[in-house]
């Protein structure tokens, strides 16, 4: 392909499938300077806000102190982070000016991420809900020991440990419909 003079060869549309107007209007959104600068400044301010908020122990409403727990701090920090990320995506990454399809992709991705984290956490968070004995940590080896006379004394086995766990759980009125498991009649 030989290179013709610029006036004869439209680099945007070499195959000339767009009309002259389309070829020149469609292409560019030139990034403006000052809006970007202010976005940058807002981002810095929000960073400072995140750092500051993470060290806030709580606040007072009248005489009542509202203490911010770990969850509240995470929510605050994540809200600010989402705002920051949205600013970066909309302005720095031109999503605001771009093909809508790119926003659709971002939306689908966020949907997938939320489903992934949310439903996985739903599993972790509901362990032991149906059956209080489930999902207690296992301590291997038990506490068997030798007595003073050298004989082997059987320690607290898994069953006993699990029963104690269950009893502890069942004293909670939320699980009142099941009674503490009583020792089944022994074979001896």
């Amino acid at each position: 392909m030989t290179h013709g003079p610029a006036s004869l060869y439209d680099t945007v549309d070499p195959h000339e499938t767009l009309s002259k107007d389309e070829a020149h209007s469609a292409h560019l959104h030139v990034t403006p300077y000052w809006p970007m600068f202010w976005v940058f400044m807002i981002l810095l301010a929000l960073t400072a806000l995140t750092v500051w908020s993470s060290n806030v122990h709580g606040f007072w409403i009248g005489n009542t102190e509202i203490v911010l727990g770990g969850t509240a701090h995470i929510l605050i920090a994540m809200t600010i982070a989402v705002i920051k990320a949205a600013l970066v995506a909309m302005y720095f990454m031109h999503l605001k000016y771009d093909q809508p399809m790119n926003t659709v992709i971002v939306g689908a991705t966020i949907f997938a991420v939320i489903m992934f984290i949310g439903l996985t956490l739903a599993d972790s968070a509901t362990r032991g809900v149906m059956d209080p004995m489930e999902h207690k940590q296992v301590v291997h080896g038990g506490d068997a020991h030798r007595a003073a006379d050298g004989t082997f004394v059987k320690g607290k086995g898994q069953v006993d440990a699990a029963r104690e766990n269950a009893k502890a759980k069942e004293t909670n009125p939320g699980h009142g419909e099941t009674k503490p498991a009583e020792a089944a009649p022994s074979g001896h």
Partner: protein
Amino acid sequence: MSGHHDVSFLAPKETSFKSVWAWVYTLDHKRIGVMYLAATLLAFFLGGVFAVVLRTELWEPTRTIVNEAGQATVTGRALFGWKENGQQVTANNAYNRAFTLHGTIMVFLFIIPAVPAALGNIFLPIMLGAKDVAFPRLNLFSWYIYVFGSIFAIWSIIHGGVETGWTFYTPYSSSTNWGGVTSMVLGAFILGFSSIFTGINFIATVHKLRVPGMGWFDMPLFVWAIYATAIMQVLATPVLGITLAMLVFERLFHIGIFDPALGGDPVLFQHFFWFYSHPAVYIMIVPGMGIISELIAVNCRKRIFGYRAIAFSSIAIAAISFLVWAHHMLTSQTAALNAIFSALTFLVAIPTAIKVFNWIATMYKSSINLNTGMLYAMAFLFCFTIGGLTGPPLATLAVDIHLHDTYFVVAHFHYVMMGGTVLAFLGGLHHWWPKFTGKMYAENPARLACIMVFIGFNLTFFIQFFLGTQGMPRRYATYVDEFEWMHKISTTGSYLLASGLLLHLMVFIQSLMAGAPAPKNPWGGLTFEWETESPPIEHNFPHEPVITHGPYDYDTEVPPHCDPREWPLPDQAKVAALSHH
């Protein structure tokens, strides 16, 4: 435009060195597709060998390929690696490695790339009237990544094999000391990138390279299916990447996130893994569904019934596939989540059912050409319907507790993957074989092979449903005597299946060596690939094609390059009357 544009894409260059170089450094989507096809068929063969081996082991309740002393026989050693980390190949490890390698090779090396990366690569741009995919270099790069990943996977076989199952569940996979696990996991990790890049390429191609005038609902359904697949590939595969990376970290650096010995959570691994791997089974089946839509429409000479329903159901499957992963974990996760995932799982069955109804409705009042492709489409409908209908019991909570991890799951999975994707793949291969090789295949031997595959497949897997409901767990090298007769039927079927596939191989070789030259449009298709030469020329079309009709307008169009006397049109008055409704 210069003259080389009229040459077949398969044509060799002036010198043999240039010819080789032209393949190694080709940017032509068709050549890349052919290279994918060769590689995936090789993987299919390798995975098939392992399948036959593991069915052979199950011929008897006790050991077949390992001896009584618990050591692999010569056959077992030859097949499952000679590097043993100072340990003996013990009784069942040979079998465990056989099913793991069968699973990993079939899933990661064969089924996932087979339809999209091989057939999709060759035909997606042509069906859109494009000269190439959006990013040809990325396309070639994907192929090399695929080869690179495959080398890791193959290396793991030599390096002692893998015996974790293709699901790599922790803590077994993070604690087992057989040599091949890390390299197999790395291989699957790398193969994931190949899949991602192919998906990105196809999405951009569908969005930006449709021929002018082709709207979304003028696209062939194969393209819709590949598009839906690409969405899943892009959104799901990275999670597999991070999962496998974390598994490698777990093995190398003991990070303790999945390892309970260090305070981690093995169930978390299962969530990570299935978040990818459930969409992955749709990545495997949806392209096959796309092929079936083409096969049925072309061979029935009929406008496909409910085009939009089929197109939207592909997208619906893609979307819902992200919400159902934990139905693989109904015995390992909590009851509350089980209920949620059971309900969500039934959602995905609805679009699937709609597709099957539409395909069968298309056959009504049509003109059916029972060539190998159509036979495969019917075989697909038979097997996939069974596979689909055995899904709901597995989604039903109380039933799945019983059937989970039994042969019922094995049978269901194979009815969907083998009876679905592989049969569709074979049908598509026959359908498009004349187009991309330029050679016809021998129809009757191919039909015979198709029937052998169909009978062999059903013989192998149907009995496994009963094995499963009777309580035979999967991944068992030895079993109790009462299951023996069922395993014997299954193994016999697998040999018939293997013979059918070998017959197909012979038909293809014969076609390549001495097949009659293929016409441009042997089956009378209306989509763009039937307008170009067989095999297509280097940039697909001499001129940019013009879209004048929909992909399935068999009521009003004589297919290109077909004799109108042989392709009489339906009564146009009735067509017009119908279209007024």
